[in-house]
């Protein structure tokens, strides 16, 4: 097939971690449908459900990067358009939350290991965020790698303390308070 003459003029995140809104230019040969995939290879893409008549709303299913093709009776568009569904932070937050939940579900196993050292110990917390959220120990902190995260005093710094402990995302530094 020669490929459709339709053009994806707009492809935007609908803001619900699932759908994208699509505007198509051109006159279709027959009905319009859409393909979507995780890579820019149409052979790996699949049909997606679309509603509306322009803009169309397609259900992509979950966040992240999607490549989208429009197709009609002449075939699919040669070049896909891309959209990122959801914020990058939202995926990282989902991962962090999932890890926290897994770690908390593993608490009995972690405690069994700790009891080789401290016979009566219990794991007090599993947190996703920053050190400040842990206030009972032993604790596990899954660090939140937020894109807008800069600096924080951690884990127990206070204005009268003699030292500050600071971290930036994955980097750990320590400096004396001046």
């Amino acid at each position, binding site marked *: 097939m020669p490929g459709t003459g339709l053009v994806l003029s707009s492809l935007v995140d609908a803001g619900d*971690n699932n759908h994208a809104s699509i505007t198509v230019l051109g006159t279709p040969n027959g009905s319009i449908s859409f393909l*979507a*995939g*995780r*890579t820019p290879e149409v052979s*790996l*893409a*699949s049909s*997606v459900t679309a509603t509306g008549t322009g803009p169309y709303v397609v*259900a*992509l*299913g*979950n*966040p*992240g990067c*999607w490549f989208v093709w429009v197709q009609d009776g002449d075939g699919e568009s040669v070049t896909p358009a891309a959209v990122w569904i*959801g914020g990058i932070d*939202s*995926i*990282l937050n*989902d*991962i*962090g*939350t*999932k*890890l926290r939940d*897994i*770690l908390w579900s*593993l608490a009995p*196993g*972690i405690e069994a*290991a*700790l009891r*080789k*050292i401290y016979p009566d110990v219990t794991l007090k917390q599993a947190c996703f965020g920053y*050190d400040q959220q*842990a206030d009972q*120990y*032993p*604790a*596990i*902190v*899954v*660090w939140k*790698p937020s894109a807008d995260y800069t600096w924080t005093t951690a*884990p*127990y710094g*206070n204005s009268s*303390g*003699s*030292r500050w*402990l600071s971290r930036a995302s*994955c980097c*750990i530094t*320590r400096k004396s308070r001046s």
Partner: protein
Amino acid sequence: MVISCVLLYNTEVSELKEALQFGGAVAQLLNQPAYVDITLDSGLPLYGCHVDSASAQIYPVDEGTWSATANLMWAGELLLVKPS
């Protein structure tokens, strides 16, 4: 993703052995086959998830308070899947 496993002490600590045992236990549990492929609540699948390195540090927290922390580096890949 960085995972910190933190022990807190009211006395000065000078060795990392216990923090490393804590972190090592967490790493072993997370590296079980059941957690190599996981699915987020959004439905997005991850694969090849594992803890691939660890380090430990002792932090002087405050007057008379110390922490020993094992930091684990956890990695996972977004799974490229066809939409359902």
